[in-house]
């Protein structure tokens, strides 16, 4: 019977030794759930698992963008969120305030990284709250003006000279527009209600701002002026006619790809959409025209570490790996995604591509919608004011005043419930 005992002890020792050298397992949720995005993410995670020196093993779960938020929200409520996850770069402080996400400053400092220099300023500023870094900027975007060169030629315009100012934009648009016999729009030069054209981009373009002494103020004179101009533009085109035009292109068909829209504001990755789905559309791309100064709007995805994770250090290690130059370069090269690591974005080969260069340069004129902890969705109230003025003909000043009141009520509500 002695050999049985020996065997038992022996196997126990082997087991203990393996356990002590076993890797730390961390979980990671992201949104690259199909196509080349998933392939690249899988590859990068595999590479990390094989090469990292801390013995970290990342278990990743890819969830489609549409299901991602519900699933992550429920997981957070149950306290079962992954150790590290992708999230919305636009509202990092609301999670920092709730205490769900970990302060990453110590991990960044331990590496001796100068994060302020490494990342683009605009997206990185969204990661900070009360002087600490709560997220890493993974991927961002910018809005640009895409225009159809063939339609430009047809209208007698120079296809190599896109509009620079908003005035030029309308001059060009009027030349491109063609109506049907019934007076509806067949080809439209530009439609401010289509694509990624939003009122706040126009506000920034005329030099307006939503903040006054650090407080949100959507009814300040610059915004009232912007909305008056915005409504006048739409009225001139005919709101109902614009909506009829849009209704034709709601179901997986796109007015610009169909060659029925002269100019459109879209995100930076739209170029590859055109090349894939409408290779015969001869397009050009430029900055969004501006009434007073260049402006565009950014959004993006962050990487965040759960504050309740037992492996915060390892999770931060992996997050930092994902924003390292090598990995970010792969995302830029293979997926054309606008990465936040400057060293990767300014890669000389990438910068030879004029479309890439334009995106990178546009980032310096770009901004996020300002974040307000007490009313993180304040812009929905602004959008409502815009819709009221446009669709219902409500007085511009009154619509914005009412929006400001609603936002202030929301802020008051936050204060009442967060004593």
């Amino acid at each position, binding site marked *: 019977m002695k050999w049985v005992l020996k065997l038992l002890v022996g196997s126990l020792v082997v087991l203990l030794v393996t356990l002590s050298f076993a890797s730390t397992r961390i979980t990671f949720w992201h949104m690259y759930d199909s196509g080349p995005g998933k392939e690249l993410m899988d590859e990068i995670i595999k590479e990390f698992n094989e090469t990292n020196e801390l013995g970290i093993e990342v278990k990743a779960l890819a969830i489609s963008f549409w299901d991602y938020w519900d699933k992550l*929200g429920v997981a957070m409520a149950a306290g079962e969120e992954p150790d590290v996850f992708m999230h919305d770069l636009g509202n990092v402080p609301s999670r920092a305030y709730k205490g769900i996400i970990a302060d990453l400053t110590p991990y960044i400092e331990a590496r001796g990284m100068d994060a302020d220099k490494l990342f683009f300023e605009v997206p990185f500023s969204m990661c900070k709250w009360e002087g600490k870094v709560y997220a890493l900027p993974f991927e961002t975007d910018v809005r640009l003006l895409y225009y159809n060169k063939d339609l430009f030629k047809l209208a007698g315009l120079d296809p190599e000279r896109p509009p620079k100012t908003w005035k030029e934009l309308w001059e060009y648009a009027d030349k491109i527009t063609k109506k049907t016999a019934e007076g509806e729009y067949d080809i439209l030069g530009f439609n401010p209600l289509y694509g990624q054209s939003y009122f706040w981009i126009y506000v920034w373009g005329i030099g307006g701002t939503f903040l006054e002494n650090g407080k949100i103020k959507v009814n300040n004179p610059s915004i009232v002026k912007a909305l008056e101009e915005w409504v006048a533009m739409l009225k001139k085109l005919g709101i*109902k006619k614009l909506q009829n035009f849009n209704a034709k292109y709601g179901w997986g068909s796109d007015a610009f790809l169909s060659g029925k829209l002269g100019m459109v504001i879209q995100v930076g990755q739209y170029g590859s959409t055109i090349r894939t789905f409408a290779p015969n559309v001869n397009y050009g791309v430029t900055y969004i025209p501006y009434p007073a100064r260049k402006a565009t709007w950014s959004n993006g995805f962050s990487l965040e570490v759960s504050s309740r994770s037992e492996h915060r250090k390892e999770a931060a290690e992996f997050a930092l790996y994902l924003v390292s130059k090598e990995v970010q370069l792969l995302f830029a090269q293979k997926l054309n995604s606008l990465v936040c690591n400057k060293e990767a974005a300014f890669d000389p080969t990438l910068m030879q591509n004029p479309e890439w260069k334009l995106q990178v340069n546009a980032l310096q004129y770009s901004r996020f919608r300002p974040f307000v902890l007490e009313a993180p969705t304040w812009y929905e109230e602004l959008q409502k004011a815009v819709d009221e003025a446009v669709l219902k003909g409500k007085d511009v000043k009154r619509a914005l005043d009412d929006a400001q009141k609603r936002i202030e009520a929301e802020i008051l509500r936050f204060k009442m419930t967060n004593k």
Partner: protein
Amino acid sequence: MAERQHRKLLKHKQNTIGYLFAFSWIVNLLVFVLFPIAFSAYLSFTRYDGVNPPKWLGLTNYKIMFTLDPSFWKAFGNTLYYMFGSVFLKVFISLILAVILNNARKGMGVFRTIFFLPVVLPVVPVMFLWMMLFNPNGLINRFLAFFGIPGPLWLNSPAWSKPALIMMSLWGVGGIIVIFLAALQDIPRNLYEAAQLDGANSVHIFFRITLPMLSPVILFCVVTGFISASQVFAEAYIMTGGGPLESTTFVNLKIYLLAFKQGDMGYASAMAWFMFLIMVPLTIVVFRVFRKWLTID
């Protein structure tokens, strides 16, 4: 004596077995239905972001709802609009269709199937179908244009979005028609025969016999219809997202958005409890009004 004792024991044993069989259902009811309901009542007095433990606030959530949040009242108004619009229209139209079907000599089975068919179809694809119909260039507006009527923007118009959803709810009349048909066939023949002998015409017969005899069933359809219409959610969630201009933001959608998108479970629970508490007096009012209008046995 022994006999009696034996019976008692047997009855006791049978009861135990009965409770044992019902045990899993009772546990289910307690754990997954009653407990969450009671817990949401507690949450309505707290701030609960879904992450940190709930913090007691007393009546603050209710105070905010009544004094600080006009968007809640807008959602409440939208819900009432939809409830009254869809329930009465649905009951009215299915009553007419049921009476016609009941008098049809031929084809009742076929038409009953046709009207009931939409009820069986899964709702989401049906909603996409209706979105295509309501498209400003869609079938409905083309049909109207044929008569020279310029169609509205339907789901894209703040004024027409609710009427559009009410129109869409008529899609589900089949369920009510089937109930009405069964009730119509339950009305004793001799009443009709007696009326005909007395020389009553069909209008009299309808208003003096058919309608009063149907009134309990109508009441049932109205009350259950009200309750289910007050829970309208999927249409707005899928077809309009609550827009345009919050014209289709119903209370349930608002509760969902607050709880799961904004992480404001406490406030959302307060709204849910207000809705629950308002449905009770509303149902009583419907009962009272009906008792005045119609005779109920």
